[in-house]
């Protein structure tokens, strides 16, 4: 299956890159002109924090808008904790509505998780909620509001946890890079637009010109065959991002591309960048032209260092990379949105006066049959999974038994290999909420994702994939999974309805996990959009092939039309959430996980 691209890379409209000089940069007291070293947002250290959720006028695009802020800053202050300490956070909600803060990726007791409706009832207007929990991990995480669409308006911030024991890598500089998407439209307006016209922000729709071009290059018969798969299912191969640069301005640490967040280094220094995707609806493809990025941690957890040129960061994910700029030059930190409708940009420089060229955006991706879930062959070529797959086809009698609700018992594939269970679409999937089901989904573990599949060939860039991730520490829980839960991520794009197994949150009962059980969760993405799925409370130990060194993640991108598996040790009682990190899909694509 080859991936096709549109050749016209330049958009008719360009997205808003910001204000030029003189933007209001909140929480960044020393930064007002484009090339000042805007090292980072305020950092709060210690084990006692007073945070205040409020609002403030900002001007990021030339128009005054109200943003939600934490201690007056957008994004909120960096919280710097120490592993082993107990932190207390008094969060004062000064909004006229309920709010909350969720510590994304931090393992806390259920009642400290900040999930309204599950762990608590939210922070009432003008009330203070005291979070208090022991910090039992280290690395890069983030926090955000889980109330309504508050995250979109700016309630986001970074968490950096210093480890007790020394890290297995060293560096001289340490910067947090928070990526986000800002819109002058209210989140409710964006949601209403999507509900009424899901293509509202898509300026890259298929046109008659595309068809003409395909007929000329592929001929009528082949074009007809290729188009048929999409036309018959009433789906489009141009639905890459739902909310795009049409309305979004992409930010790094609250800076627009024009106000250019800038970080300094001295040649020869090693610079650690803590990349956090705190966006509401944007997957970013980040690279620093001229520099290799050594990935040392994923979702806060250390991995065997691996050098790459480009990383796709799903919303909710974090990566720690170390770069070693040798020369006295400036480098662009360039993070394109997945659909290439815009970018976030910052600068890494040895001299404040220097900034680097902003690269052109890459080719716009077009979905393929693989993204429709018709790519079983692609799976067989993946060596990690060949074993499981062959076993599956050869010994039918040994197939795991499925019971109601997508649970499988017995004869499960060994830990690390991923699922070998048959793909079973639940009866609830034949609902008006579901417009498509992936029939032969491949395993998405080695897939760099839509638009990145041929970057080696096209741009000579090495793109990080999940299969490159190998934990730097052995897997803690060495048990085999006792059972497996297969979840289908479902939706109806035209009606803009999102669900899991065809059931929206309010209609569905919670998934019950037994306390201390070791289980496998397999996500089957029946939509044609990548779904970054976040499991609260537990590590999602991604099955990248080697069961001995499973990377621990909290947010996992399920590629369109693909499946992906991770292991979970259900070691903490309580009520937890498993949901899409795509903000406007979250209300439906959301489930409760209860540990009993």
């Amino acid at each position: 299956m080859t991936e096709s691209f549109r050749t016209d890379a330049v958009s008719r409209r360009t997205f808003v890159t910001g204000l030029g000089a003189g933007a209001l940069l909140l929480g960044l007291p020393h930064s007002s002109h484009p090339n000042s070293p805007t090292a980072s947002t305020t950092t709060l250290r210690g084990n006692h924090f007073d945070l205040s959720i409020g609002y403030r006028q900002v001007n990021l695009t030339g128009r005054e808008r109200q943003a939600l802020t934490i201690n007056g800053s957008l994004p909120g202050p960096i919280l710097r904790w120490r592993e082993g300490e107990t932190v207390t956070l008094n969060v004062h909600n000064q909004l006229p509505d309920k709010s909350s803060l969720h510590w994304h990726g931090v393992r806390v007791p259920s009642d400290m998780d900040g999930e309204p409706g599950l762990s608590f009832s939210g922070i009432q207007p003008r009330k203070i909620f005291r979070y208090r929990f022991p910090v039992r991990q280290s690395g890069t995480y983030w926090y955000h509001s889980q109330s309504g669409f508050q995250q979109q308006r700016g309630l986001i911030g970074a968490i950096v946890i210093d480890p007790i024991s020394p890290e297995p890598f060293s560096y001289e500089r340490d910067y947090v890079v928070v990526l986000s998407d800002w819109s002058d439209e209210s989140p409710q307006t964006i949601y209403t637009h999507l509900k009424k016209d899901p293509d509202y922000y898509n300026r890259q729709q298929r046109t008659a010109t595309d068809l003409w071009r395909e007929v000329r290059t592929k001929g009528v018969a082949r074009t007809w065959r290729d188009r048929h798969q999409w036309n018959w299912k009433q789906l489009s191969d141009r639905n890459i991002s739902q909310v795009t640069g049409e309305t979004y301005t992409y930010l790094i640490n609250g800076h627009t591309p024009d106000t250019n967040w800038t970080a300094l280094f001295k040649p020869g220094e090693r610079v650690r960048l803590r990349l956090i995707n705190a966006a509401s609806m944007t997957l970013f493809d980040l690279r620093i032209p001229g520099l290799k990025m050594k990935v040392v941690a994923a979702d806060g957890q250390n991995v065997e260092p691996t050098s790459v040129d480009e990383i796709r960061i799903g919303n909710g994910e974090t990566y720690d990379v170390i770069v070693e700029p040798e020369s006295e030059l400036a480098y662009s930190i360039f993070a394109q949105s997945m659909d290439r409708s815009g970018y976030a940009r910052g600068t890494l420089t040895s001299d404040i006066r220097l900034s680097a060229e902003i690269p052109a955006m890459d080719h716009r991706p077009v979905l393929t049959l693989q993204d429709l879930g018709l790519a079983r062959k692609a799976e067989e070529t993946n060596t990690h999974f060949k074993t499981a797959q062959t076993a599956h086809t050869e010994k039918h009698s040994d197939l795991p038994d499925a019971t109601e609700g997508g649970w499988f018992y017995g004869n499960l594939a060994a830990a690390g290999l991923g699922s070998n269970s048959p793909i079973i679409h639940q009866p609830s999937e034949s609902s008006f909420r579901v417009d498509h089901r992936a029939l032969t989904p491949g395993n998405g573990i080695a897939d760099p994702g839509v638009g990145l599949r041929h970057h080696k060939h096209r741009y000579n860039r090495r793109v990080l994939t999940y299969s490159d991730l190998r934990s730097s520490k052995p897997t803690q829980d060495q048990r085999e999974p006792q059972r497996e839960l297969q979840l289908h991520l479902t939706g109806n794009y035209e009606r803009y309805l999102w669900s899991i197994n065809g059931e929206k949150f309010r209609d569905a009962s919670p998934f019950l996990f037994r306390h201390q059980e070791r289980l496998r969760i397999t996500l089957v993405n029946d939509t044609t959009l990548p779904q970054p799925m976040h499991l609260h409370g537990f590590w999602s130990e991604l099955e990248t092939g080697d069961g001995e060194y499973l990377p621990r993640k909290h947010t996992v991108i399920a590629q369109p039309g693909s499946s992906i598996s991770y292991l979970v040790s259900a070691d903490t009682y309580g009520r937890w959430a498993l949901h899409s990190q795509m903000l406007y899909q979250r209300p439906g694509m959301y489930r409760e996980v209860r540990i009993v």
Partner: protein
Amino acid sequence: MFKNVAGITATLWILAAQTSYGQADSQHQRHSYQSSDEDNEEEPMAEVSLDYVELRGDNGGEIEGDFSYGGEQNKFVAEVDYERSSGEIEKNELWALYSRAISANWNFLIGIRHDFNLETTSRNWVAVGITGESPYKFEMDAVFFYGEHGSTAFRLEGEYEIKLAQDWNLVPRIELNFFGQNDEARGSGSGLSEAEVGLRLMYEVTRKFSPYIGIHYEREVGNAADFAREEGEDVVSTVWVLGFRAWF
């Protein structure tokens, strides 16, 4: 009569403007700050679609649009269909429907259609049908009508959107009207009575507003054609149209 429909359209417009804009803007703070346990509640949504608002070359015109209000599966739909050609009112309908999503791409409709007094008396119909999108993305409406004194009718409408460029659409459209009986007074005949075919070129000034130009072809068929000939009216007409499509 025109005032009648215009009045209804204006009312729908205002009604929807209040509901949808109220939601989106003046109260956006309330909504956007809301917490997620409430967020997961199904929030009803209001929408006005003006599909065709146009003038036609033969001193005619059309207003076709609807107001809908409801949740994810069930909606209330009020629809207006007004059509006039050669100075004569052809359609003057107000619908009130219950719409229910029955599959990924189809909705079931049931309700009433009221035809305002044309040259004779006003009529009421019970309407039952489906609306949705077929494979290959054809927008379809198929509605069966059962009227007073056992009269029956069936209307089939289809529309397709050809995207010429990001903001240019070419929209072919077809409408077929069938009747179960002859009705000489209204000029409709049993079987296929009337066929309309149109082609419109639309420019999206914004996603919500597209002015267009196009041509509209209309033909009486079978008995209806005979009735028209007897009256000395044209059986076939081809006219230019100028109008806009909008939603909010």
